[in-house]
């Protein structure tokens, strides 16, 4: 693993990226195509709860929903993973055992990352011991913005090491990185340091995931793949609350990275409220009736 050459990270044309991202929103998916897109999106969900109020009961309930999102139709789902705080990993792991649904945990002083590296690494090891299959770490945005890029590289590499067998998703928190150039550079550093996934946001900062910022990261993944032959996954998170937007993300992934990335091994949605909208749209496609939130479970 070597620190990347910044000259290989291109400057981003802001207007160009935003225009290209906007064009993905003009595609019209209908009927069977739409339905298969919606069903695919459900399997890509990292069903998430990251609240101070999370309780054992709430996490179990969410796990049940992740395993079988639409009780009356077992062919929908299951979701890719559940994403919880470290204290809830054990509960979640037990709840989804044997279902194929993975357990992801946020770690490394989520969401701010403002803690000594030693404790942050210990947090990762704790989560892995508790049974987490995937770790969602945050980078130290403060240090990144101060220009201490090597520190970011080192912390991602050490976190990857601490993960052992577990997959590492690196949250850039693009809403705090200010420019697309910095998003691109942070993506390149994270991938070079061993990230299995790069992820836009914690969901605690606004703006969270947007189409243009995701496009910049997808292009970084594509360039990295061409240079090294290693595939890296992408996870936009936060702010993707409806099915229409989710389909636009899928269109973008398909066009930028191709079909290889179009499955839950390489692409995930981090979301809490998206699940129900996807389910409602699936029911709409199947029954012809526009649905109401009253007929879907809340958590």
């Amino acid at each position, binding site marked *: 693993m070597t620190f990347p050459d910044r000259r290989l990270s291109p400057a981003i044309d802001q207007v160009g990226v935003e225009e290209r991202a906007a064009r993905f929103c003009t595609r019209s998916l209908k009927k069977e195509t739409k339905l298969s897109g919606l069903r695919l999106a459900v399997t890509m969900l990292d069903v998430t709860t990251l609240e101070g109020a999370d309780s054992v009961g709430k996490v179990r309930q969410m796990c049940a929903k992740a395993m079988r999102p639409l009780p009356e139709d077992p062919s929908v789902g299951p979701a890719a993973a559940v994403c919880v705080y470290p204290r809830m990993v054990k509960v979640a792991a037990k709840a989804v055992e044997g279902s194929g649904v993975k357990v992801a945990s946020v770690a490394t002083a989520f969401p701010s990352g403002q803690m000594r590296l030693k404790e942050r690494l210990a947090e990762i090891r704790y989560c892995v011991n508790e049974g987490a299959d995937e770790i969602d770490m945050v980078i130290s945005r403060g240090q990144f913005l101060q220009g201490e890029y090597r520190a970011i590289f080192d912390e991602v590499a050490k976190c990857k090491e601490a993960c052992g067998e577990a997959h590492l998703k690196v949250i850039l928190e693009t809403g705090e990185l200010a420019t697309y150039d910095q998003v691109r550079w942070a993506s390149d550093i994270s991938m070079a340091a061993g990230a299995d996934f790069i992820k836009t946001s914690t969901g605690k900062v606004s703006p969270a995931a947007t189409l243009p910022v995701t496009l910049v990261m997808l292009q970084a993944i594509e360039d990295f793949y061409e240079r090294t032959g290693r595939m890296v996954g992408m996870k936009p998170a936060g702010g993707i609350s409806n099915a229409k937007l989710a389909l636009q993300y899928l269109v973008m992934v398909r066009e930028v990275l191709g079909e290889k990335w179009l499955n839950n091994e390489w692409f995930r949605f981090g979301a809490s409220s998206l699940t129900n909208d996807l389910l409602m749209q699936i029911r709409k496609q199947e029954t*012809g*009736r*526009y*649905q*109401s*939130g*009253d*007929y879907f479970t809340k958590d």
Partner: protein
Amino acid sequence: MSRLGIKKTYKLFIGGKFPRTESGRFIEFNDSKGDFLANVSWGSKKDLRNAIVAARSAQAGWAGASAYLKGQILYRIAEVLDGRSEQFVSELVAQGLTADVAGEEVAEAIDLLVHYAGWSDKYSALFSSVNPVASSHFNFSVPEPTGVVGLIAPTKGGLLGLVSVLAPAIVGGNTVVLLASEKFPLTAISFAEVLATSDVPGGVVNILTGKRDELQVPFASHMDVNAVVLCSGDKAAKKAVDLEAAENLKRVVNHPDRPLEGSPYHILDLQETKTTWHPIGV
């Protein structure tokens, strides 16, 4: 000096805003002499769905507003309408009524709003009850708003017909999507301007213009609509609406195709009764 006339664009009223129909369609509307009067938005099913979403998001806030506030707002609608009554009279005349009938209709509509404003803090007392039960419980029933209500306004009675179905629905805490009369679409949208300046929160009332035949069944088939008020004597239409409404046990209230008399029972039409069993000590 002669001026060019300014033709008003009659748009839809959704979520407190005046959007054009997403379909881009319009209906040419002629006055009683057959001369062109205005282009009216020909609302689509998609507009209807957007309106339902707006009504749903306004539902909790409006249902939770105090009776006093709802009454004040209804009274405010009456005040603002009163100040613009001349405009409504001339618009109704352009749509085919005589000046006398139009004048009466506007006056009645204003009075009806005041009538329902007065009911806002009274109907729940009228329709609540304390029920005798054979156990040590305090048992009582109270009316609660049904939720999102679709109103298919009577064809006859332009302004009065609209107000007579709208006022009892909203004073009871429901949010509504109203399909205006095909004969009087202009008045409906001008009335939306009154609503928009009367402190009615955005989304509580949404008004569409368009064709009944196209939109009445989608009202009934949408799972997020809790009740439909259908002012129509057409048996086939009633049946089609009933069939679709059965899917989520939507309430369907059928009235003849004319303005409703003011009555608290029209408020009750769109209320659900909640009964509470409260244990009491021995």
